[in-house]
């Protein structure tokens, strides 16, 4: 069953097209990669689908609700925004409890959710420490935990491994694969790192300058190009630069 359906989704800022006619579907339990160079429109696509921005054209549904019901969509999605900030003075546990309360959970349920999620992402030991004392990797794991606080049907992760060392990246990718497998949620993973896509994604959307260049299972997109890297450079026109 499709948990995301986008048809001709556009976002225009004056004369500039940030996103131009994005059309795709994603199913439950699928990890779909959103790949593209900087400025390709990945973050815009996520902000449209998460109802933070309003599209200038096209339609979409997320978790069974159309885009004109943002409140319903927000109830059923979890998001790790790009370059998410964290309240430095709150503890990890307090941060998650607050998020859970905003999703309508009781004090007791919010407490239980915070404990469970911090354990899931390996932060139980630092639950009461201020977020300002967390490393970047710990903050990203906390962000993923927050994205899961409402048991979402669809999870959007925008550059979750940005700025992490290889060990940190590996931990995050393992967590993402786990989210899709154990929770049956659709995961939309925005990245510009090809190895991440190859490691955890089932299918792929390649964006370049706001346009969708390719969509489908990774094997199909690689096709005769030999590798995802070659296919990506070809589709984004970067193979002719040198």
């Amino acid at each position, binding site marked *: 069953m499709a948990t995301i359906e986008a048809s001709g989704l556009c976002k225009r800022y004056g004369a500039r097209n940030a996103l131009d006619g994005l059309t795709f579907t994603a199913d439950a339990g699928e990890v779909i990669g959103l790949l593209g160079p900087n400025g390709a429109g990945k973050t815009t696509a996520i*902000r449209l689908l998460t109802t*933070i921005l309003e599209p200038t054209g096209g339609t979409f549904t997320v978790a069974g609700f159309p885009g004109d019901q943002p409140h319903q969509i927000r109830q059923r999605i979890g998001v790790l925004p790009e370059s998410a900030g964290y309240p430095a*003075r*709150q503890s990890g546990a*307090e941060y998650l409890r*607050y998020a859970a309360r905003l*999703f309508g959970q009781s004090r007791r349920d919010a407490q239980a959710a915070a404990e469970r999620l911090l354990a899931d992402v390996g932060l139980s030991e630092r639950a009461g420490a201020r977020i300002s004392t967390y490393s970047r990797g710990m903050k990203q794991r906390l962000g993923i935990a927050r994205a899961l606080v409402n048991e979402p049907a669809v999870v959007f992760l925008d550059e979750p491994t940005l700025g992490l060392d290889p060990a940190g990246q590996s931990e995050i990718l393992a967590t993402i694969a786990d989210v899709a497998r154990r929770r049956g949620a659709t995961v939309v993973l925005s990245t510009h790192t090809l190895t991440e896509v190859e490691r955890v994604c089932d299918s792929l959307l390649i964006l370049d300058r706001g346009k969708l260049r390719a969509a489908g299972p990774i094997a199909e997109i690689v096709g005769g190009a030999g590798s995802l890297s070659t296919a990506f450079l070809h589709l984004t026109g970067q193979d002719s630069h040198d």
Partner: protein
Amino acid sequence: MTSWNVVATQESRDLWIGGRGPVLIFGYSILLSAITYLAATNRAMNFLEQREAVNLMVQVALAVGVLLTVAISADTISGERERGTLEALLLTPAPRRAIVIGKLAAAATIWLACLIVAIPYLWVLGRGVSGAGQAAVLTLVVGTLVAVGLGGLGMIFSAWSNSNRTSLASGLLLLLVLFAPTQLPALPKTGFGQLLTRINPIGSALHYISQVLVARRSWTQDLDYLISPLVIAVAAVGALLIAAPRLVRLTAGTR
């Protein structure tokens, strides 16, 4: 518990537990102590009638309390934008109206703290003339109107600005513009001067308070001076409620 309550509770915790609230209130108490000491000991000021001393304390408490409320509320939205925490808040199902009301309620807690801290000073200055209790209730009623109104305006500035500095500077400029006329030595009490006092929510609030505390008029005698504080409170909160979906956005301005 409704969303606004959840937001207000967390924002209040952030302000008071490890936040700026306690330090600001400590600084405020130092100011009140200095004024109380001067009022009580300085020979030149000792000429003050007790009710005037209480009135002076109320005016300082109101002025500084409103200043702190505006400073806190001017940080509420633009500050979250700068720190990158607003998007996560907007991604929750909490209605935008609940977010602004929760944040305004939390900002108003600093005003209530200012009032509570002022009570012992009012008591010591007003002993024997039973002015302290009346002054505290008067400050609560009138000051809350002004603090909510101008705090609401501070929040609107905050929603309009991507930078915290801009919203804070706008809020402080507004306060300066409103406070300046109250400090003029001899504003005419008729015609244009009176109009200027009446349309200025701070000027009219201070005038009303001094009429009750010093001139010993009844609460109802100059009630029309409370029109502008009431109008500013209702207008600011109303504007926030009506325009919340347009105001509370990831970036100020275009969408």
